[in-house]
């Protein structure tokens, strides 16, 4: 178990470092995908099956492909060979520290940290998640659905206009 965790952690870290340190944007995207996969493995090890599979389905199957498509469809000028660590590195470091601080403090402030760790995984976590999504969390779910539908319609409208202009 411990060995599995260390392997997954190393894979995730290599992917994450590669995503910022590699020169070609496609390589960065692919190493980010590796980090996503490593995270999914860690979730699975922690007994969060549903989260792990959703992570692979959404991040590896959709987000990574989206990033790759975005890189390919933008002009080739985007594929620069500039130094990975750009000039205002102090600014970047500041932002990173700030974000980490906010996440750290909010994690510590939440009640999850102080709850004793669950000893047994519930028998059917997918069912519990589904029930929660349809009862307690139904409003956020609907808002998200509305947002995504709006984005979808917006994308269709954008694509439509471009076609009319070209023909």
């Amino acid at each position, binding site marked *: 178990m411990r060995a599995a965790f260390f392997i997954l952690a190393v894979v995730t870290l290599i992917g994450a470092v590669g995503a910022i340190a590699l020169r070609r944007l496609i390589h960065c995207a692919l190493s980010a995908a590796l980090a996503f996969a490593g995270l999914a493995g860690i979730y699975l090890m922690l007994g969060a*099956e549903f989260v792990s*599979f959703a992570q692979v389905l959404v991040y*590896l199957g959709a987000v990574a492909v989206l990033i790759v*498509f975005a890189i390919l469809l933008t002009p080739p000028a985007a594929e620069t060979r500039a130094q990975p660590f750009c000039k205002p590195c102090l600014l970047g470091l500041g932002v990173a520290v700030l974000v980490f601080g906010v996440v750290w403090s909010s994690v510590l402030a939440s009640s999850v940290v102080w709850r004793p760790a669950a000893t047994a995984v519930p028998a059917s976590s997918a069912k519990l998640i589904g029930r929660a999504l349809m009862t307690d969390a139904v409003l956020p779910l609907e808002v998200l659905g509305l947002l995504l539908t709006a984005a979808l319609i917006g994308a269709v409208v954008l694509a439509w206009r471009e076609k009319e202009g070209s023909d």
Partner: protein
Amino acid sequence: MFEALDQLPITLKAWLVGLLPEAWQAVASPVLSAAALVGALAVLFALATWIERKGLGRLQNRYGPNRVGPFGLLQPLADGLKMLTKEDLVPRNADRVVHFLAPLAMVVPVLLAYAVMPFGRNLVAADFDAGLLFFFAAGSATELAVFMAGWSSRNKYSLLGAMRAIAQMISYEVPLVLSALTAVMLSGSLSLVTLVDHQAGYHGGWLARWHVFTPWGLAGFLLFLTAATAEANRSPFDLPEGESEIIAGHLVEYSGFKYALFFLGEYLGLFAASGLAITLFLGGWRAPLAGLNWVPSYLWFFLKLFGCLALFIWLRGTLPRVRTDQLMNLAWKFLLPLALINLFVAALWHLTAGWASVGGGLARWLVGGALLAIPYAVLGRALFSGPRRGPRVYRYAD
């Protein structure tokens, strides 16, 4: 006797694990499961290539392989040796690391997907509570592998092929998942083992209670198979590889064993999709008739798998390749609406579960069937009677 034969793989594994020292047993059990899976799939792959070449030969009025071994049965072995001894060519400008990793990224997720497949009674490597989600998650990871292959080859044909393949896989994933959802709705579980258990029992004491024998199940099965054909890039949806237009797409710069790995990945993906269709709609490893229960469960599974394979070969030998616009129209204007209607019919079937006892079983059947057959006819007519396109205009080639 039957019990022993049915549970033979499980007792064999338990005996093998028992031979090892105590400390190794926890590691040996999953390793043995994985090894058995990979071995069985390799044999299945070899057999499938032979069946496909023989079957296509029969459909095209020729012999097919008949030189190596009896009936050409050793042809897959010869092919494998040929692939291993071929030169492994990598284009000079190719991205060597990604070019090397792409075949692996193709095969590994496909193999992972088999972990949740119930091949027989108690014969499953890992029964996850969200097994169906695991299956689709593993399947979606192959899109990235196709992209890696297409991009790293530094060839415009391979990149075009990869883009086509990804667009096709993403489009057809929607009807694929939606048609699988019907079975989940009715059995109330994402675990594939529970899904098979939900199809236990017999109608009238002889016909199995498979999902395919209901209106929504039949529609779901056909929708699922269609979407799976496209997902596996098989004919008639093999545009990404279109030999006559983009010379095998993302595979164009692959040779030797790397090409064989892609080939293996595609075949195993097809088997996995067929296996899932069997698990969801064809009762998994269960016998079709009550009197046939004496055949071991895993034999039923593989019999059904070969049936699906024969269907795919038949389709490949019969249907011409579709155009890109036809491909996208079929996915978004035909399969997707039908899959959504099918979800509704499945919900109706669930709500009217009490009708069967009152004697309204026939009415339930007729309502469900009509709700699916009428949109099928209307949508199908709309799909084929769209605005006629004039002769194709080539903007750059003239």
